[in-house]
């Protein structure tokens, strides 16, 4: 094994570094000027082949062959230079790959460039109040009336719902068909009279999610992606291009480093908590999982670089992240002690004390729900990873 990237990658790194030195000079620019500068920079970086690598040139992408090592070098160098990467979010992560694979020429022309530029921001319209883990039971209805889809129903748990201009949604278009076969993948303009959005206040007091009500909202007939009734499969089109990244483990590692800093800042029995043998045990016990997660991400990166499948461990990364996050939450709760009685001021506020960890402590609970609950993750590991028989209830429900 060898964790160095190799000579070819290092040559490429020099090239990226030179590009950034020359092209990323925002200096003291602020506000609209900075925005324009960033927009121009992204265009140049795309021309150079560094951004939007999976997007064909005809839609304004760099159209580069998949190369996870190069992609990693780009992330590292842009990170080091604090240069902006691609616009992220549901649109780039989920919609654009889906359109590239399943979209019509009209849909590609209408949406890809606008999404890349950030002019269109997308909300995901999958979950409904009665539809959580059993996603194929969606009830939001779309009926074709003339050359328009008329949409009625409710979607929930849409992140960045305040900024979203559009939504890609799973809607029931074939009420007579079986559960999965009755669903279509439809694009919806959210700026119209039939759409109402409302923030959901979370247990932390913040509102990261929105719900959307559709009351005779409309979409052009041509905004349905893939075939009618094939929305379930369309929604499973995922971005494989350079998906693996070592950075995916950095979040957990960064959080652990902060936990260690917390233990250095607070006291326990009259001395820094980090000197307490119990705390040292608790921290290193958690660190075992953090390291397992980090090196598993290296493993997945390496497999992707040689074009191999990630296998069992790939199915586990989310659950491992969630469970380690829970462990850190409990350790943080122990460390902050009585400060847990103080409600933290909003993020970004100056002078927040150890009580700010309450956000992580509560947020860790969100991780066990969002993006497939922990129990669903365990089903996936057991059924897809270990080959155990599928749950009878799910067989029947299908």
């Amino acid at each position, binding site marked *: *094994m*060898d*964790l*160095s*990237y*190799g000579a070819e*990658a290092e040559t490429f790194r020099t090239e990226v570094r030179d590009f950034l030195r020359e092209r990323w000079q925002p200096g003291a620019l602020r506000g609209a000027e900075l925005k324009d500068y960033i927009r121009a920079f992204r265009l140049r970086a795309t021309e150079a082949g560094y951004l939007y690598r999976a997007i064909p040139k005809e839609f304004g992408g760099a159209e580069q062959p998949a190369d996870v*090592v190069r992609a990693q070098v780009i992330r590292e160098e842009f990170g080091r230079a604090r240069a902006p990467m691609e616009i992220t979010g549901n649109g780039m992560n989920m919609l654009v790959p889906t359109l590239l694979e399943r979209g019509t020429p009209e849909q590609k022309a209408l949406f890809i460039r606008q999404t890349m530029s950030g002019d269109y921001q997308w909300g995901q319209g999958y979950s409904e109040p009665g539809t959580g883990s059993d996603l194929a039971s969606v009830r939001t209805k779309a009926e074709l009336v003339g050359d328009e889809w008329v949409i009625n129903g409710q979607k929930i748990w849409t992140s960045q719902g305040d900024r979203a201009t559009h939504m890609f949604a799973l809607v029931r278009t074939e009420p007579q068909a079986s559960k999965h076969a009755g669903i279509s993948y439809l694009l919806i303009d959210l700026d119209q009279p039939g759409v109402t959005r409302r923030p959901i206040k979370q247990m932390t007091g913040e509102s990261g999610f929105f719900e959307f009500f559709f009351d005779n909202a409309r979409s052009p007939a041509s905004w349905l992606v893939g075939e009618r009734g094939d929305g379930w499969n369309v929604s499973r089109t995922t971005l494989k291009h350079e998906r693996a990244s070592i950075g995916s483990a950095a979040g957990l590692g960064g959080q652990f480093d902060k936990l*260690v800093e917390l*233990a*250095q800042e607070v006291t326990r029995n009259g001395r820094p908590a*980090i*000197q307490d*043998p119990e705390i*040292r*045990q608790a*921290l*290193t*016990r958690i*660190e*075992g*999982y953090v*390291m*397992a*997660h980090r*090196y*598993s991400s*290296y*493993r997945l*990166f*390496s*497999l992707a*670089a*040689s074009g*191999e499948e990630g296998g*069992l*461990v790939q199915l*586990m*990364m989310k*659950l*491992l992240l969630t*469970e380690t996050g829970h462990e850190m939450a409990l350790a943080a709760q122990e460390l902050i002690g009585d400060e847990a009685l103080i409600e933290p001021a909003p993020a970004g506020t100056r002078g927040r004390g150890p009580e700010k960890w309450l956000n992580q402590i509560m947020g860790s609970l969100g991780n066990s729900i969002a993006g497939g609950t922990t*129990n669903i*993750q*365990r*089903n996936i*590991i*057991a*059924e897809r*990873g*270990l*080959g*155990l*028989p*599928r*749950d*009878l209830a799910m067989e029947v429900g299908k």
Partner: protein
Amino acid sequence: MRFHPSEEQLAIQDAVRRTLADVWPNERLHAFVDGEADFDGESWQALMAMGLGGLLVPEDQGGAGLGLLDAAMVAEVAGQAAAAGPLAAQMIAAMIVSKSTNGAAKAHLAGIASGEQVVTLAFGGDWLPETWGATPEAGKVRFVQSAAAAHLFVLGTAGGGIALVEAGEGVAIEPVASSDRTRRLSTVTFSGAKAQQLFEPGDPFVARIFDAVLVLTAADALGGAQYCVDLSVGYAKEREQFGQPIGRFQALKHQLAQMALEVEPARALMWYAGYAHDANLPDASRAAAMAKAHIADRFVSVARAAIAAHGGIGYTWEYGLNNWFRRSLFDRAAFGSPTVHRGRAADMAGW
């Protein structure tokens, strides 16, 4: 950049796995467990015939010239099969002697690499080099594996040195009832034994040897834990209750997923510890301690869960799962507990 096993590494693992399936089937494991011997000659010879004794010996000294990571992958397979050993000790001993400049000790190298001379580790104290207290002249060392079969002992000497001690005169062996019946232990008393000092107390190479032992112990635990998961998953697919395989029930399915979650990500931690050692990275020693602590704990946890997942049959002597549970006791305690190594890791982090 590569951080998954090479074709060659997988081929070595596969060959060791097939050899052990031949020479160390369940019946032999059971016979060994029910017997009194602390060594199994037949499986030993089969493993040694593969050249595993010289795996860590440089090619110019007649070995395979491979690294600790490769040895760890072999130890993993041995742990999975609950092999009797002392395989890890043999690989380490050959490496130690190959690095030594002591001519008299060097004369043993060919015999160690070929496996004709069986070597075991006798560290004593509280496992850590700074707690070693014996010398070839005088001292008592507890928990020595396969001592009756050993021709040579890698003795941890007072203050943290290493000596190669010959069995025979001046070496008295007293077997102890061992909880892990696949790795039988003895208390060994040294009194004027014939020996060569390989590394003086304080030689930095001693710490490296100890780290290597930790990595191989972690690898053994990883293999054992994997066995517990595989056996439980296999059983859940076959065993029927209420007219269906029990693996269909979500409660058990989730227990099995949780077991796999403990083991599979830990594999990359073991690899990193082996790689860091071979590449002499600054955090190699800490990675060895973390790998030993984390993976030994996972083995204990998964072995317990495996017995629970099996129900009654898992609790029986005949089924044999208890042998892996017992091996988890060994891997946890031997060469320092997870608590000890986590404490060391905290120290090494400068906290």
